[in-house]
């Protein structure tokens, strides 16, 4: 029987004594799936396990029913754009895609045709004959995507494909993922930014410290996000004084000095209102403010909240 899922069955991976992922049991259905977690949570390890670049210490993995130690079968069905921003030296975009297509057994003409199609799909035709070493970060991401999709796989794994891209390039890549999914591909995208995955994915798998801590509909995760207080770090002189004053606002639920004593971490349910109040306080008390950073853009805090609400991982 044809299996259309990516199945991790009680998979663990240890690097010596260091945990990669632990006891992961997952069944990823067709559609766009977001794999989300902070850096070091095990996203890349899961992708590498699913493609045989790593071998599980325990458990087993099947992609569309194919064990991952059978590259000859597996990689006709699977394309993987890794996070490694590295390329064979001296290659142009076109020669990079074409050369690796020949490893599939395609003849020259077929390899060139498929490469041209893939390059056109990622809008890199004008730069296809330039060396990859001279590409911008966004172009390198796109040529990796072209290489991963050129053989027309059924499953596409994308490890942090939006990392380091500017907003325009991100929007363009997201449009491309949608198009690929509309073409019938089974797309798994990893990101450490939940918002990105929210935009792209139908379902989400949340990872932390090598464990799967949440899995399912993106709506559920989003509703938790909306009731989540936002954290803002303010670095300034007299942080104790500022901490005392910010509590005057009703929306502030927590204000604590940061460890180095050089700032205040504020948790608020009304970020816009808090910013107005902060401006007022700075004018009134002449605080010398060095930085104001919405820490929720740092995903660690989002995950700390989400993972806390899951009741712990281990």
């Amino acid at each position, binding site marked *: 029987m044809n299996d259309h899922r990516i199945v991790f069955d009680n998979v663990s991976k240890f690097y010596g004594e260091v945990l990669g992922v632990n006891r992961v049991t997952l069944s990823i259905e067709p559609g766009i799936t977001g794999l989300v977690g902070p850096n070091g949570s095990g996203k890349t390890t899961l992708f590498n396990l699913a493609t045989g670049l790593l071998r599980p210490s325990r458990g087993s993995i099947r992609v569309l029913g194919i064990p991952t130690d059978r590259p000859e079968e*597996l990689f006709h069905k699977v394309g993987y754009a890794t996070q*490694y921003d590295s390329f064979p030296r001296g290659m142009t975009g076109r020669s990079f895609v074409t050369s690796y297509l020949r*490893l*599939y*057994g395609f003849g020259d003409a077929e390899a060139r045709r498929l490469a041209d199609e893939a390059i056109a799909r990622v809008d890199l035709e004008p730069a296809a004959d330039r060396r990859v070493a001279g590409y911008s970060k966004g172009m390198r991401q796109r040529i990796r995507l072209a*290489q991963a999709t050129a053989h027309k796989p059924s499953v596409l794994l994308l490890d942090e494909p939006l990392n380091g891209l500017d907003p325009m390039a991100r929007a363009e890549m997201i449009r491309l993922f949608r198009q690929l999914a509309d073409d019938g591909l089974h797309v798994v995208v990893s990101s450490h930014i939940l918002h990105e995955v929210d935009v792209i994915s139908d379902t989400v798998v949340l990872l932390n410290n090598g464990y799967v801590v949440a899995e399912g509909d993106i709506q559920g995760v989003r509703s938790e996000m909306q009731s989540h207080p936002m954290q803002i770090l303010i670095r300034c002189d007299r942080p104790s004084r500022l901490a005392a004053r910010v509590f005057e606002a009703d929306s502030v639920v927590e204000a604590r000095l940061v460890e180095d004593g050089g700032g205040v971490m504020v948790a608020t349910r009304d970020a816009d209102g808090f910013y107005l109040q902060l401006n007022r306080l700075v004018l009134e008390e002449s605080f010398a403010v060095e930085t104001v950073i919405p820490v929720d853009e740092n995903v660690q805090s989002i995950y700390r909240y989400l993972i806390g609400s899951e009741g712990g991982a281990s």
Partner: protein
Amino acid sequence: MSDAATGATVRSLRLRQTLAVARLEIGRNLLGLRALGIYILAALPIGLVLLYFWGRMTFSGDPGNLPAAGELAREFGTVFGNLFSRSVIFFICLLVFTRLFRSEIQERSLHYSFLAPIRRDVLVVGKFLAGFVAVGTVLSLATVACFLIHFLPLTAASGSGGYVAFMLRGGGIAQIAGYVGVTLLGVLGYGAVFLAAGLFFRNPILPALAIFGWELGNFLLPPLLKRISVIHYLQALQPVPPPEGMLALLADPPSPWLAIPGLLAVSFALLVLAAWRLRHMEIAYGEE
């Protein structure tokens, strides 16, 4: 489809994949400026033989003092045994074959090959084939050039007719074929050693130095240990073997019927070992 037809299709696919790997490797590492070191090393013996020829022609005076074909053949045997087999073939193979996989690990691009529907043993064979074809071609040309230059004094002694006659009817062609054959066997043997070393050692230089010392001092080893080396077989296969030297512990040279299959078998075993290593390799560039 019958089993035989399926088998033929799979064999045809693997052959295409092997050639694709070889082509990729040659284009990437064995052509152009990146391979300059190989060309310089291969040109070194040509330069030395040319220099020697120039010195001989300049300082020998009377053409009657120039050596005859037999003497030149003995000289070339010594030059080939010490310069080619012990040094040039060894170091070019070290330079090329250790880097076949190591360079891709260092530049973090090996995963592209691992993510193609290709058996990892086919990767080993394809890359080895690329190295063998590239190095074998360059070194064979260098061997032929050195041989032709080394025998040029025959033109001074007996005119170009004598030179051509020696080459065509006096055993010259047969000797060239013999030396090219030994060169190719050397590339095969050292290539397999260094391809495997590049997969087993993060820094293959230290094991390479140990192997170099072993091969260099081979003539001092007792007969049993001599057999565990590439140079022992290569020198025995030369059309004119080099003298072993005064300090050498003499051992019966292996017959070609033993030396050639022996070298082929050892090379094959090393490639099997390399393929086993590659099959069990994980991509963890951070640990490299």
